[in-house]
């Protein structure tokens, strides 16, 4: 038992992911932000040891941690941080002194620390020559096609990571990842909710973020007309979101009443009430006039989305619709709606909704109501109004919110929280590999 609890140094942690944009997670290991989201979803100090807002509410002061070493051995200076933030936000007034920086965003910025927790505001020093350097527990050693190699930062301010290196393989098919995990060729792999039982039966640990992805049904132009309003509304009401979240996605998802999950916005019930229509199934509803046969397009590489789509087709059948689910690898026949899986990276409601709108695409947004995405720092009311406008015509129908799920080998142990945080970030500085 003592051996199991005692961390081991050394070894290479092997991670596999389907995500082609895994670099975002990797960057979080190499480039830190002033403030970070902790395991509970709150904020925790990172490069900034503390922060405070002045009485007027227009100026934030972040006191930096002392003695933080960059990957090249140099010490991080407040001037470095101020320069990075000024480069990223031209409208900000950023000043620095010996151990702190002051930020005046020029607007009411009560959630500035949350904004600074966004990876977009990570402190990345870009020297005139050579690779970018940061302060994170790992430095990027090399990037190849399908492989990112990280090396432990020996002088990391929060003590050296336990593992010597991390190898991240990207774009691995889900089935291959689970096979690699079972064959001990990988230590952490991404997984789908539909694989929960398989993973659990094999005694692997499942670690998940909070729901940070949205499954949404988006109608195409030919069925987004006013004449099809009734049809879309009936179909949206027929979908048994609870069964999808509970059974199809094995309880790892939340039925979506709004585009943003409740933990991000806190207002999902309000959206529900404003829509005036419960998201429960409308099995007894008479079939609407107009189109009765619809084609639903799903990404061929996403088995979870395909399972959700099949269930939507079953529910729709009760409401008098025949839905054909198609997931062609290339060009396919004309379709009437898509089931999209949209990630949300933002740490504030406005940023998250912007992410969602970007993920849905300008065409879907235009069909839904031609609303502009909220600006950074917009108040919650504005975000609520925008989302309400997007959902008003049922051109965009939220289905469920799902987390990022990882299957973790029992070899991977960690102090100080799970390997995957609520934000989806990888907490690997305190992870080690138990002795084989």
């Amino acid at each position: 038992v003592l051996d199991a609890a005692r961390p081991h140094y050394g070894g290479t942690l092997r991670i596999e992911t389907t995500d082609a944009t895994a670099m975002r997670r990797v960057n979080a290991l190499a480039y830190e932000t002033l403030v970070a989201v902790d395991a509970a979803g709150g904020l925790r100090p990172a490069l900034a040891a503390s922060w405070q807002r002045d009485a007027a509410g227009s100026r934030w002061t972040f006191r930096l941690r002392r003695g933080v070493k960059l990957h090249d051995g140099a010490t991080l200076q407040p001037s470095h941080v101020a320069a990075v933030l000024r480069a990223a936000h031209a409208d900000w007034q950023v000043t620095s002194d010996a151990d702190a920086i002051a930020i005046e965003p020029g607007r009411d910025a009560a959630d500035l620390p949350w904004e600074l927790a966004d990876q977009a505001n990570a402190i990345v020093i870009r020297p005139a020559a050579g690779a970018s350097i940061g302060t994170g527990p790992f430095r990027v050693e090399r990037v190849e096609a399908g492989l990112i190699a990280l090396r432990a930062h020996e002088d990391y301010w929060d003590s050296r990571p336990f593992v010597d290196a991390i190898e991240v393989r990207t774009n691995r098919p889900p089935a291959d990842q689970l096979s690699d995990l079972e064959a001990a060729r990988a230590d952490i792999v991404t997984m789908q909710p539909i694989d929960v039982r398989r993973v659990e039966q094999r005694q692997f640990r499942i670690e998940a973020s909070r729901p940070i992805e949205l499954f949404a049904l988006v109608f195409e132009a030919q069925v987004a007309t006013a004449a099809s309003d009734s049809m879309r509304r009936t179909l949206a009401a027929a979908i048994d979101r609870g069964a999808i979240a509970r059974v199809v996605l094995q309880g790892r998802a939340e039925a979506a009443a709004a585009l943003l999950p409740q933990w991000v916005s806190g207002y999902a019930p309000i959206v529900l009430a404003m829509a005036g229509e419960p998201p429960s199934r409308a099995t007894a509803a008479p079939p609407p006039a107009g189109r009765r046969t619809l084609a639903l397009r799903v990404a061929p590489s996403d088995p979870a989305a395909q399972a959700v789509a099949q269930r939507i087709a079953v529910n729709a059948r009760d409401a008098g619709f025949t839905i054909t689910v198609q997931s062609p690898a290339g060009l396919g026949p004309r379709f009437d709606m898509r089931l999209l899986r949209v990630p949300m990276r933002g740490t504030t409601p406005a940023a998250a909704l912007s992410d969602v709108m970007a993920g849905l695409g300008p065409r879907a947004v235009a069909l839904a109501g031609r609303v502009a995405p909220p600006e950074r720092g917009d108040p919650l009311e504005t975000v609520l109004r925008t989302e309400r406008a997007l959902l008003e015509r049922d051109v965009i129908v939220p289905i469920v919110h799902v987390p990022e799920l990882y299957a973790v080998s029992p070899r991977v142990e960690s102090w100080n929280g799970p390997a995957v945080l609520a934000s989806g970030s990888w907490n690997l500085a305190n992870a080690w590999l138990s002795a084989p």
Partner: protein
Amino acid sequence: MSLRNRLFALVSGVVVLTVVLVTWAVSSSARQSFATVDAQRSAALVAQFRREFANQGEQVAMRVDRAAQSDAAARVAAGVASSRDFAPYVNEAAALAAAQELDVLDLVAPDGTIVSSAEWPARFGYQLPWAAKTAATRSGGFLQPIELPDETALALVAVRALPAGARALHVAGGRRLDRKFLQSLVLPPGMRVLLYENLQPEVSGRHLIAAEDDPPEAAPLEPLIARVIQDRREARDAIEWPDGPETVDALPLAGPDGPVLGVLLVGSSGRELAALVRRIRWSGVGFGAVAIAFGFLLSFLVSARVTRPVEQLAGAARAVADGDWDVQVDNVRTTGEIKVLADAFDTMTRQLVDHRDRLVQAERVAAWRELARRLAHELKNPLFPLRITIDNLRRARTLSPAEFDEVFDESLTTLQTGLGNLNTVIGRFSDFAKMPAPEFAQVSINELVEQSVALFRAQLAAPGHPPVTVRLELDPAVGTIRADGEQVRRVVQNLLLNAIDAMPEGGELRIATARVNGVVRIDVADTGQGLGEEERSRLFTPYYTTKQHGTGLGLAIVQSVVTDHRGKIWVDSEPGRGATFHIELPA
């Protein structure tokens, strides 16, 4: 048609008819025999298929048994008994179905709710009432409509119950009756099986499933399918496909509640039979053709062998008819009646030649006699005055010189006249002997006739001449012909002279011309005493004459000229009714 051809056609016809009849009889008999054998084979195959189908049902039941007895099913049953949360088991059916190679597998909670569905995973939570209903009543496989995401299909299923607390978890599994199922059936060559899924109100070919990639056209099968569904009984039809006939046995497949859910069509191809019959037929046709060809050859040889002596006899007969009486058929190689006939023919021709020779000899003798008689007659008449004159001269030696001179001069004149007559007679005979060959040129017959008649008009109009009326009936269409004008003129003049001489009491002389059937005809008719049969038969014989002073060469010359012109001359006459000479010359 010649005898040989008739004989050849007859024998060939008999051969062809015989061959055709034999070929048809053999082909027909073979087809009936094969059809009987094929019907027996079809019945055996259908029985074999029934066994195979039943075997498939047992296998399905066995596999469902295994699935129900698996640890996974037991875990689900335990979980269902203890909790209403079926989510952990939603994918269990797929794994169980894959393990047991079943197309359809549903784990159904005691209340009929689908816990997990292999064929339609998204259908969890819905009701599957037939599983619990049939679990208690059906132990083996049975037919059941199965709902799939895109369609309703037929499946051969079995249901097993597992204890789940106080109630039961039902495991309902089976195999789809689809193309794969049909392909798994062990069928002998020449047999195929089709399945019609009777899941829609109307019979439609869209619901016809075939084991092969290219299903047949459904329309010819639809009446049979409809009949089986309506009658709920087996039926059989012979279907004519473009590539051959097929005997199709249709078996109703009933569901647990009795309705016909499907129709199994077991086709026994008649193509092999048809091919066999076709092969026999073509063999028959081939052999028949060879036999007919052989028959033709044989009939040709036989008819040639049979008819060759007859043809030789016919040729010999034609030669005899053409005047060649020396022909013999003694080289005919035959026996029997034809040999007797040939010998008789040879005897006949020999006798004919003998008779001819004798006749020629007799005629020659008669001709010489006639010639001698005519010569004697012709020479006798001029000689008589000569002899009298000479006698008178001899007597006149006693007269006075003046009287003698007068007698001498008269006698000399008479002698000269007599000698002139003799010379004339000799000249006529000489002319007949040296009749020249005709010199052909375009001659107008009508003109020639008119000129000839004009020569005689003065004579006919002379005083004291008996009255003779000349009537000309000249056809303007006669035109010209190629002939020797001088000789034809002599012919016409000779006939005119004869006609005038035939009417010493006067009468009517009619001369007519006409063009008939490619010949020019000249008729010279008188109203004289006419000719008897004996006269007619000898009329053209040289030196024969009915006149007091004729030489008998006139008509002989006429006939000679007409013959040299490849023409024809004949006479129509009866005693007391005049005579008409007819001449036909090629136009």
